[in-house]
């Protein structure tokens, strides 16, 4: 299958390992990955902070970048959530019905990584090897906006060498929330403190999730506390093999 990678601006700029791993994983599974170079950012930060008018041009760019492809994948529940549930809304808010319809069309072909693997490619064992004790944080947008359910866990359970540790109170937000973590830094920090405590309680040496943004937040806290627990994107675990 020919799959267009929506790398997301955050992974492209700050966490390229997640996007690279997505490419390597899909190629290993026998698919062709293309990267439409005109893509930048889906505009979620603008939309969720209230700058929906500024976001229109980013929605338009995103739609133009991905319209030619039958299947689009992103290593992010949050960015796919924005594409699926916000792009058409933003276009309609500024009376661009044509853009809204095209956005809906692109959204209908856009998948978060675990959705693509389990629902579209029908694979749960991707042949990965990752000899670590790992806990999985279901990010809010993958869980409650996309409803990926246990798809990431099904993929992780099939990874050889991986010991999965259940995260207590897993469904609670880590406190990131984009600009929330800046505008309401104190409340965000209190939420992060509880999330970190739960991660540490699992005794895992790796905390994984499907979103680089939440991992950046949790990882930033774990690093500050010098806990030694690493944050690793789900794609990187699934891309790992005994050869790597």
């Amino acid at each position, binding site marked *: 299958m020919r799959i267009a990678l929506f790398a997301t601006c955050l992974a492209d700029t700050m966490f390229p390992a997640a996007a690279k791993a997505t490419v390597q994983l899909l190629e290993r599974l026998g698919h062709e990955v293309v990267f439409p170079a005109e893509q930048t950012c889906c505009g979620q930060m*603008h939309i969720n902070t209230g700058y929906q008018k500024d976001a229109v041009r980013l929605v338009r760019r995103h739609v133009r970048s991905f319209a030619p492809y039958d299947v689009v994948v992103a290593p992010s529940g949050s960015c796919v959530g924005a594409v699926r549930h916000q792009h058409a809304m933003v276009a309609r808010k500024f009376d661009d019905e044509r853009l809204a319809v095209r956005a809906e069309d692109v959204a209908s072909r856009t998948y978060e990584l675990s959705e693509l693997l389990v629902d579209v490619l029908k694979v749960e064992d991707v042949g990965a090897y990752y000899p670590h004790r790992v806990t999985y944080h279901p990010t*809010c947008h993958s869980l*409650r906006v996309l409803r990926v359910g246990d798809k990431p866990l099904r993929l992780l359970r099939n990874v050889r060498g991986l010991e999965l540790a259940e995260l207590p109170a897993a469904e609670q937000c880590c406190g990131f929330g984009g600009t929330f973590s800046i505008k309401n830094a104190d409340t965000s920090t209190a939420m992060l*403190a509880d999330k970190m405590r739960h991660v540490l309680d699992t005794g895992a040496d790796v905390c994984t999730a499907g979103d680089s943004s939440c991992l950046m937040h949790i990882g*930033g806290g774990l690093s500050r506390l010098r806990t030694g627990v690493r944050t690793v994107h789900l794609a990187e675990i699934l891309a790992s093999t005994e050869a790597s």
Partner: protein
Amino acid sequence: MTTFLGMPATAPRGVGNLRGDESFPHAARTALGDAQLRRNLHHATTTIRAKSARVIDELPDWQRLRDAGSALKAYTMANLPLLLEQLEERVVAAGGVVHWAADANEANRIVTELVRATGEQRVIKVKSMATQEIGLNEALEAAGIEPVETDLAELIVQLGHDKPSHILVPAIHRNRAEIREIFLREMPGVDPALTDEPAVLAGAARRYLRETFLRTKVAVSGANFAVAETGTLAVVESEGNGRMCLTLPETLITVMGVEKVVPAWQDLEVFLQLLPRASTGERMNPYTSMWTGVTPGDGPQSFHLVLLDNGRSAVLADEVGRQALHCIRCSACLNVCPVYERAGGHAYGSVYPGPIGAILSPMLTGVEDNASLPYASSLCGACFDACPVKIDIPAILVHLRGEHVEAQKRPTPEGIAMAAAAYTMDHPRLYKAAQRAARLSRLAGRRGRGLPPPLNGWTAGRDLPAPPKQTFREWWAGR
């Protein structure tokens, strides 16, 4: 004399206890520093959450009940003027009197005059968000009338000269040692040997309230539902204090937000299943009182219904936000909210805390009067999943953030930065240059180094990741 041509362009905004003195982040900081408060909140919300989840899981048709509740409310809002007129007609036909209050001040004036007309100096009250919203107790006190709250938690709040911090459990921020102190200090005729045993505290409140019930001739209540078809009012509660207030006095005055009307008697079958399970985690509500006008020889012989707008028409005019009027005040969204659990109810300023307060208060007052509230959420979506009438709170929060940004008359630093970021991201060459600049920040943003305001809140408790040596697109271009 002016000629009135149809609806005014903007409906009047709500007044009363809907605005805080400080912004949410500022107020939250105080609450976050109170370890006892955080323990109380964590314990209480975790307990209610688990209890509610258990009884919701029992129902195979919970999602369909939510759909039904949502559809009934949407129908109600689409037909609100007609339903209210029908309600008025039925209440009047059953011997009640209906008053229309445009805002909190008018509602307070109506109730105060009604109490004055009875010649009584004291009223007993059933817990009611509408009367908290309009500040009725303060208005009555100013007129020399003593209001006595009869819900235990509301009584604790009243005696403590405090503000409620939760819709359902208004004294959630108090523990029993604090309650004992409040009772000893403020409760008339309290036993000085009072302990902080829950049963002893409840007994003290019961003795005090029983006496008050028996010697008070006027009661004020809110309403959970009002049936347009029959003119029936409904109040649900757990302690039996409501039943006493609604049946013993000679005069009953009910203050109700206009959105509480439901079309038909049968609609209650949906809401009376949704509300207790989402709210207290009970299968059935302990006390459900319903009354239709006046019944000769039984219950209050004088009944007044005050229909309160106080900004609700303005909410109704907002196509995206009007869902907020579907709220049945169950407080499920508070109990699942990670922000509420840490910051507590007082941080929201308004009598409506938590996720529902973060959308309802700014819409009732106009977003500029509560501009920090739509941002008091990480948009985690737990509230939407918990809401028994499926109010899409995250979508309304995003909508209100947009309203706030669009209401700015002058460019703000954030607005300039956001416009610049959007422009950059719409020009791939500039975007690549910005990515290179981010890499240079490896020097500035090293471990432990702080960022300047307004970004310093992030680096106060978190390290920034070091930008990678190569962006993804550079790697891709070089394969």
